C-alpha cells in the first residue's frame, strides 16, 4: 500500500507536465491578443505594442513556454495580466472560498442524498420511494441560477435571515451551499438508490437473507457496504467538479471563488491565470482519484493495491 502510494504520487509529475504543455498550447491558440485587451478599449497602437513587450508576449512561443515551466519549478506562476498581481496570490485568495463552499455543500448533499437514496431503495415502489425520487428529479431539474435568485428573494430580501451575497461569515454560506448542493444531493440520491437496488439483487445478499440474518443487518452491513464503492466514485467526481468553482453560483452570490476567476481570465485572455487554474484543477482531480482509490480499499478489504 505504501509503495503504491509513493508510485502514484510520483506519477503525478509527468501528468502535470503533459497538462501544462496542452494548456499552454490551447491558451495561446485562443484567438485574440491579450495585449490589446490589457491595454484597454481606447488604447492606441503604440500603447498596445508597449504592453505586449512588457508582458513578454512578443517572444517566440517555445521560449515563453520554457520560461513558464522553469518559473513554475521555482514556485513562480507568473503575474496576472489583468491585475498585475502574482498569480499565486490571485488564486490563493479565491481557493478557500471555493474549497469551503464545496466541502459544506458536498457534506450536506452527500448525507441527504444517501438517506433519500437508501430509504427509496429499501421502500421501493412505496410512497417513500416516489416522494424521494420526486425530490431528486426536482433537484436535478431546478436551474441553480433560478433557485439562487429565488432563495435570495425569499430568505434575504423578504425575511432578512441571510445576507444576499458575498463571503465572510457562516451565514454567507447557507444560501450558496443549498443552491450548489441541491443538484449534487439529487444525483447522489438517484445513484444510491440504483446502486443499492442492484446490489440487493446479488446472490450473496440472498444468501445472507436465507441464513436468517436480520433485515436491518443485511441492509447496513452487506448492501450499503458494497453499494458504497460506486457511490464513493461519484462523490469523488462531484467533489472534483465543484472544486473547479461553480460559475453560476459564484456569479449569483458574488462569491469570490475560482470559477468566476477562470471565466474572467478566459474572457480577458489572462494566460498565466488560466494556465495555473487548469494545473490546479488537474492536480485536485488526480489527488481526489487517489483518495478515492484508497477509500475503496478501506471500504472493501478485498481490494488491495501493490
Amino acid at each position, binding site marked *: 500500500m505504501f509503495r503504491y502510494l509513493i508510485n502514484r504520487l510520483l506519477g503525478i509529475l509527468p501528468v502535470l507536465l503533459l497538462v501544462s504543455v496542452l494548456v499552454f498550447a490551447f491558451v495561446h491558440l*485562443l*484567438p485574440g491578443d491579450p495585449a490589446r485587451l490589457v491595454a484597454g478599449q481606447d488604447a492606441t497602437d503604440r500603447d498596445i505594442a508597449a504592453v505586449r513587450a512588457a508582458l513578454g508576449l512578443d517572444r517566440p512561443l517555445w521560449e515563453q513556454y520554457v520560461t513558464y515551466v522553469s518559473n513554475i519549478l521555482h514556485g513562480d506562476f507568473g503575474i496576472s495580466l489583468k491585475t498585475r498581481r502574482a498569480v499565486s496570490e490571485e488564486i490563493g485568495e479565491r481557493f478557500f472560498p471555493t474549497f469551503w463552499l464545496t466541502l459544506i455543500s458536498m457534506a450536506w448533499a452527500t448525507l441527504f442524498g444517501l438517506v433519500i437514496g437508501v430509504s427509496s431503495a429499501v421502500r421501493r415502489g412505496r410512497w417513500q420511494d416516489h416522494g424521494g425520487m420526486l425530490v431528486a428529479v426536482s433537484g436535478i431539474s431546478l436551474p441553480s441560477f433560478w433557485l439562487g435568485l429565488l432563495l435570495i428573494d425569499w430568505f434575504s*430580501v423578504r425575511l432578512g435571515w441571510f445576507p444576499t451575497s458575498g463571503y465572510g461569515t457562516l451565514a454567507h454560506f447557507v444560501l450558496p451551499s443549498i443552491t450548489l448542493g441541491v443538484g449534487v444531493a439529487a444525483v447522489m440520491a438517484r445513484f444510491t438508490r440504483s446502486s443499492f437496488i442492484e446490489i440487493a439483487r446479488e446472490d450473496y445478499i440472498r444468501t445472507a437473507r436465507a441464513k436468517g440474518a436480520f433485515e436491518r443487518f443485511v441492509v447496513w452491513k452487506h448492501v450499503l457496504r458494497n453499494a458504497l464503492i460506486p457511490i464513493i466514485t461519484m462523490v469523488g467526481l462531484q467533489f472534483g467538479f465543484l472544486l473547479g468553482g461553480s460559475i453560476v453560483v459564484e456569479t449569483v452570490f458574488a462569491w469570490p471563488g475560482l470559477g468566476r476567476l477562470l471565466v474572467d481570465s478566459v474572457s480577458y485572455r489572462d494566460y498565466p491565470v488560466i494556465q495555473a487554474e487548469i494545473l490546479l484543477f488537474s492536480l485536485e482531480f488526480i489527488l481526489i482519484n487517489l483518495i478515492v482509490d484508497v477509500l475503496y480499499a478501506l471500504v472493501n478489504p478485498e481490494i488491495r493495491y501493490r
Partner: protein
Amino acid sequence: MFNFTKLVVAGALLLSVSTPALAAKDLVVGVPDNLTGLDPHNVNDTLSQSASRLILQGLFGFDKDMKLVPVLAESYEANPDATEFTIRLRKNVKFHDGTPFNAQAVKINFERLANPENRLSRASLVNMVSQFTVVDDSTVKLTLKEPFGAMINNLAHPGAMIHSPAAIEKYGKEVNRNPVGTGPYKFVSWQADTLKVAKNENYWKQGLPKVDSVTLRSVPENGSRLAMLQAGEAQFIYPLPPEMMSVAEKSPKLDIISKPSIVTWYVAMNNMKKPFNDLRVRQALNYAVDKRAYAKIVYNGNMDPMDSVVPPGLPFYVKQGEWPYDVAKAKELLKEAGYPDGFETEIFAGNSTTSIRAMQFLQQQLAQVNVKLKVTPLEAGVAAQKIWSVSKPEDTTVQLYYGGWSASTGDTDWQLRPLLFGESFPPKMFNVAYFSNPEADAGIKAGIATADNEKRAEAYKKAQEAAWKNAPWIYLGVERLLAAKSKSLSGAYYLPDRGILLEEADLN
C-alpha cells in the same frame, strides 16, 4: 425611587439621542465587475478609475455633470498655440501619508506616467509633453512637443491623477495595491472583490467627506445586486438593467437615477467597402431604422435621440437635426444607388445580451428595405482580432459594426479623433467606419491645434457638420444611465461616462 426612574428615562433618552450620532456611516456600493487595479496611470476601465477617484485626485477633474473643474489646480494659462500650459496649484494640501502636495509631486507623477520605460497604459495622456518644469512650489509648466488643445481635458482624465511621491518611491509598481492620494477617502483594503476606504479626516475640502467609510463590492449578477439594495446591504447600485426598473420602482425605499450620458450608440458602416461606399446607401440605412423603436425595444426607453456625431453632454456639441424614419425614402435611395432588390451584409458586435438584441432589432428593421443582415456576435478576444487588429483597411472583414463609445477625457476631440478621423483607422485607433473626409479631418486637426475655445468651437462645428451629412454611421442614440439608490443616501452621483462620484455622499 422617583429619582431612579428619572435617571433611567434620562439615560434612555440620552442613548436614543446619541446612538444615531455615534453610529458609523458606512456606505456600501454594489458594482458590476471586479477592479483591475488602483493605479490610475495603468488601468483602463471606468470602474477601476472611479474606485481610484475615491482615493486620488488630479489637477483637474469633472463635476457631477461632467463639466471640467479645477481640483488640485487653482487656475491655468495656455499660450495661443497650445504648446505651453502654466498651472497654478492649490496650496496647503497634503497626501494621506503626510507628504505635501506641490509642483515637485506633480512633476514626479507626470514624468512617471510619460516615461515609456514604465510602460504605463495611460502614457498617451501626457506623452506629448516634452518638459515638466517646476516654476515654484505651487506652479508647474508643461511644454509640449506639438500643439495639443485638449491638454487640460487630458489632465482631467482619471488616468492623470496624482500619487503621493513618497508612495511611488516606497511601493514602485505596487502603488497599484497601495494607493496614497489627496482624495476624500484613504485606502484600507482590497481583497478579491471588495474595496474598502475610510474617511480622510484631514481632507482639504471643509466638512467633507460625510460618511466614515465606503465599500465597493463587486456583484456581477444584476438580480443579486438589486436584492442587495432591497435588503439594505447596499445603499447604491449601478448599473440598473432597464428590465429591472419596474421592480425597483415598486419599492418605497428606493430611488431610481436616470440621467443622460455621453455614451453614443451607432452602427459604423465600412465607408470603403461596397455597398457602403455609396452615400445614398448610408443615407438609406439611416432612414430605414426607427430609432424610437430601437430605444424602446433595446433600452426600455432609456435612450435619447442622437442628433450629431457628438453627444450633447460634450463641449462644442452642435445639434445637426434628427434623421427621420422613412422606409419609402430609404427604398427610393437604394433603388437610385442600384440596389432595388436590396443586398446581403453582415454585422459584428460584442456578445452581451443587449448587443445581440440590438443586432436582431436591426436585422428586422433592415429586412423591410430588403437588406438581409447576418448577425455575428463576437467574444471580446475575437473582436480584438477581427476588428481592431487588422493592419490594412483592405483586409478587414467588417461591413457593419454595432458599438458604443464614451469620450473618457470629456472632450470632443476624444469623440471625433478616434472614431472619425482619416488617420485613425484600426489598428491605430477606432475608426472602424473607415471614414475619411477632408472637411471633417481639417476640423478635427484644427480643433486640437489650439487651446482657444472659440476657435475650437468653430473647428468642431465644421467637423460635426461634415461628418453628420456624410452619414458614416447609422445614428442610433445616446444612452441614459440607470442606477438605483436607497432614499437615505444623498450626494452620490452617477457620471455621464459611467463613473461614480462619492465625495459628497451622506447617509441619513
